[in-house]
């Protein structure tokens, strides 16, 4: 009877965390009622848990404010920096919503933004990691198995790629190309595969020299079998580890790029963009920067735990 191996605790913990985030991101917006349009004049930078009153007016405007009082036949709408008085007759509808995580500097609900932005963040990170994985594996494996010359050329190529001033490239590419998600994915992927390539090459090289592997190679075992029986198990751990951490890295890289102004345009919120926007108001309001920041940290922790767990398998 083959004993069932217990999955490492880290793997379970990380996977559960990741699953929670994915669920929240995919299902969350569906449960969230369609939110009111933002009203920065009256509802900017409100703390988590504020109850907001949404007023829809006859002329099509929508006001959102935490403090709405009725005095006589006037409705007074109070906001952090402005105050408006409207005749009560022009209010066509009125309802109350809860802002669970507060609002940002434009009056947008932070919970909505984080749920919507999480999707984009994850997607960019995942696709970027995929690009990185594919290129890194290809180059690393080719270098390790292709013979001395190919190894030399490819590794010098890796050196050259790494010697590129990445930041400069990103600045200039952000200037030249359209800073959309696709460009970001490609840029992030193409600037982060080098470490993986070196890692793969190193691991495969160390395996190649082992006695039984050399025996297998010499005895005419087809290359795909050598790869899947000997190389793959050897590199599986480090590669999975690298990818897991890479995913976390890319989410952070996207945050840094947004802080430097090189990320996506401000209308498409990603977690990184939210943190960098919130950073500006950090002295006045802690939640626009901290909550998405904690979300990013949580995501990175999950990815790393998964990576560790795979390593322990």
């Amino acid at each position: 009877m083959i004993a069932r191996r217990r999955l490492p605790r880290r793997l379970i913990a990380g996977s559960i965390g990741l699953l929670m985030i994915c669920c929240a991101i995919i299902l969350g917006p569906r449960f969230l009622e369609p939110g009111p349009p933002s009203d920065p004049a009256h509802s900017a930078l409100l703390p988590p848990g504020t109850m907001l009153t949404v007023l829809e007016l006859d002329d099509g405007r929508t006001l959102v404010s935490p403090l709405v009082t009725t005095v006589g036949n006037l409705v007074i709408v109070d906001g952090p920096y402005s105050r408006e008085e409207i005749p009560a007759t022009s209010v066509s509808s009125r309802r109350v919503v809860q802002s669970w995580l507060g609002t940002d500097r434009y009056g947008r609900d932070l919970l909505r933004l984080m749920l919507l932005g999480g999707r984009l963040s994850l997607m960019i990170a995942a696709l970027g990691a995929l690009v990185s994985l594919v290129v890194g594996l290809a180059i690393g494996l080719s270098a390790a198995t292709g013979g001395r010359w190919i190894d030399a050329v490819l590794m010098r190529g890796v050196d050259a790629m790494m010697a590129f001033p990445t930041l400069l490239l990103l600045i200039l590419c952000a200037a030249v190309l359209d800073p959309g998600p696709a460009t970001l994915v490609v840029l992030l992927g193409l600037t982060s595969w080098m470490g993986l390539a070196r890692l793969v090459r190193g691991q495969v090289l160390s395996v190649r020299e082992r006695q039984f592997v050399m025996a297998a190679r010499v005895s005419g075992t087809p290359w795909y079998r050598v790869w899947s029986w000997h190389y793959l198990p050897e590199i599986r751990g480090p590669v999975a580890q690298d990818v897991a951490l890479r995913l976390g890295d890319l989410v952070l890289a996207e945050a840094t790029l947004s802080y430097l102004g090189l990320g996506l345009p401000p209308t498409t919120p990603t977690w990184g963009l939210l943190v960098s926007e919130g950073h500006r108001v950090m002295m006045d309001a802690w939640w626009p920067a901290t909550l998405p920041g904690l979300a990013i940290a949580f995501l990175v922790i999950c990815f790393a735990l998964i990576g560790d767990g795979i390593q322990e398998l």
Partner: protein
Amino acid sequence: MRITTGIKAAFCFILCLALIVSSGCTPPTEDLSDTLVIGVLADIQSWNPYLTETKFSEDLLALVYPSLAVEMSDYHDHPPTFAPALAKSWDLGSDGLGLTFHLRQDLVWNDGQPVTADDVVFTWKAQTSEEVGWYGAYTKDFIDSVEKIDDFTVSFRFSQVYAYRLMDANEGLIIPSHLWGKIPFSDWHSTDWLPHVVGAGPFVPVGHVPQQDIVLGANPSYRLGAPATIDRVVWRIVPDQLSLMTQLLAGEFDFVNSLAPEEAQRVEADPDLQVVDIPHRGYTHICWNTTRPELADPRVRRALGMAINRQTIIDTVYRGYARPSAGPILSTMWAFDDSLEPLPYDPRQASLLLNSAGWNDTDGDGTLEKDGRPLTLELLTNAENHMRQDICMLATRDLRAIGVQATPKTVEWGTFLSRLRDGDFDGAVNRWVEPTQIDLEDVWHTTPEALESSNYGRYSNPEVDRLIEEVADVRDIELQKELYGQIQHLIVADQPYTFLVEGRKLRAISTRVQGSIQNDATPYFNLEAWKLP
């Protein structure tokens, strides 16, 4: 459990770290009673005023080098007047083409040499030298020659008579000819200038750590007024705004020139600091590309302007430190036509205007169309300026509310300017900072190519062109006012820009500083008279 080497090593390491941190934590004592500390975002580029391009460099160097006269900040009622500095008096010749300056005889450079007419002549040569390549050389275009009459008399000859002769002649700081004249102009760009700095202003350079600190000390041989009351002034360069604010609130800085409106509240709340707000000669606007078919109709541009709520922008972005902008000339300038009113916020009227221009929501999807094409506009702005980004967001939100498919777009600064020049934009949120010399030609005159002009939107109105050319020859202020008034009304009627707001400049100053005069000429206007307790 045996304590393994690893744990032991860990404890050692943490102990070491704690020792280092604790040793570093005792703040050393430094007597700052004679030092003024100013926080700034960037360094000066060079100690030679004709090799720099940034305003901060100019402002700082004006404390070291003398100038002929000092421009006053009284442009509200008439063109600015000048107070004597190096030049104790001046007079225009009978034909108006000559301007003679009579210099003070008691001014000396830091090395003891007197400041003479030779220095003024040499300065002009440097200003107009191709090898030096001073960007402000265009201000000397109408000056034919600068001659020394005697040691303390200099004469400028102009090629034509116009309103700003004194201003143009005065432009630029006076440099020492007896020292700098020895360095050929072709070598100026490869010289290290700090060792050569010899000035005659209220301060002298004491030290400069690039990208970190600039230290100026009081000049004991300053003759234009009492010697500076503060011994040392240190400029600390902190490129990050949050860090700058943190240090300001922690009491590290006595003065910060650039305060964002959202930070003003916090600074006001601090008992050791106060906020100074002064009129700023800038106005933020949306420049519309009039070559785009959708934007060619002035009614459309007017409607777009009316759909944007300026008050929201003033309240949220500027926190009240701004007023609506009405036209191309600032409301603080003497030439501003008081009868001009900013565009009202009236989305309903805006919709009607758009309808009358042929844009209707025929299929009820919330977007306006004409001939089957929806009204889509992209509002461009640059990423580095957060306030402009916010304005861009608010403006697009307002435009979407009336059925325009507006999208904000942020690009990097270099790209922004590039696209503006190439005409590759629909609308651009930008800001002009106006000089005290009114010159409408660059922005409002018709130009076939915008490569050499700032008329990015390719605005063209022959009547405006004619008036701009006419006012250049007029010297009578009342007549100028009238002509400028006509120009303003024409431009406002055409709405090639949506004039948004005129923001105010906010500065933070410590309460321990006494005697500072704050105006918009330079942040360090009378720095030599500031007093510390």
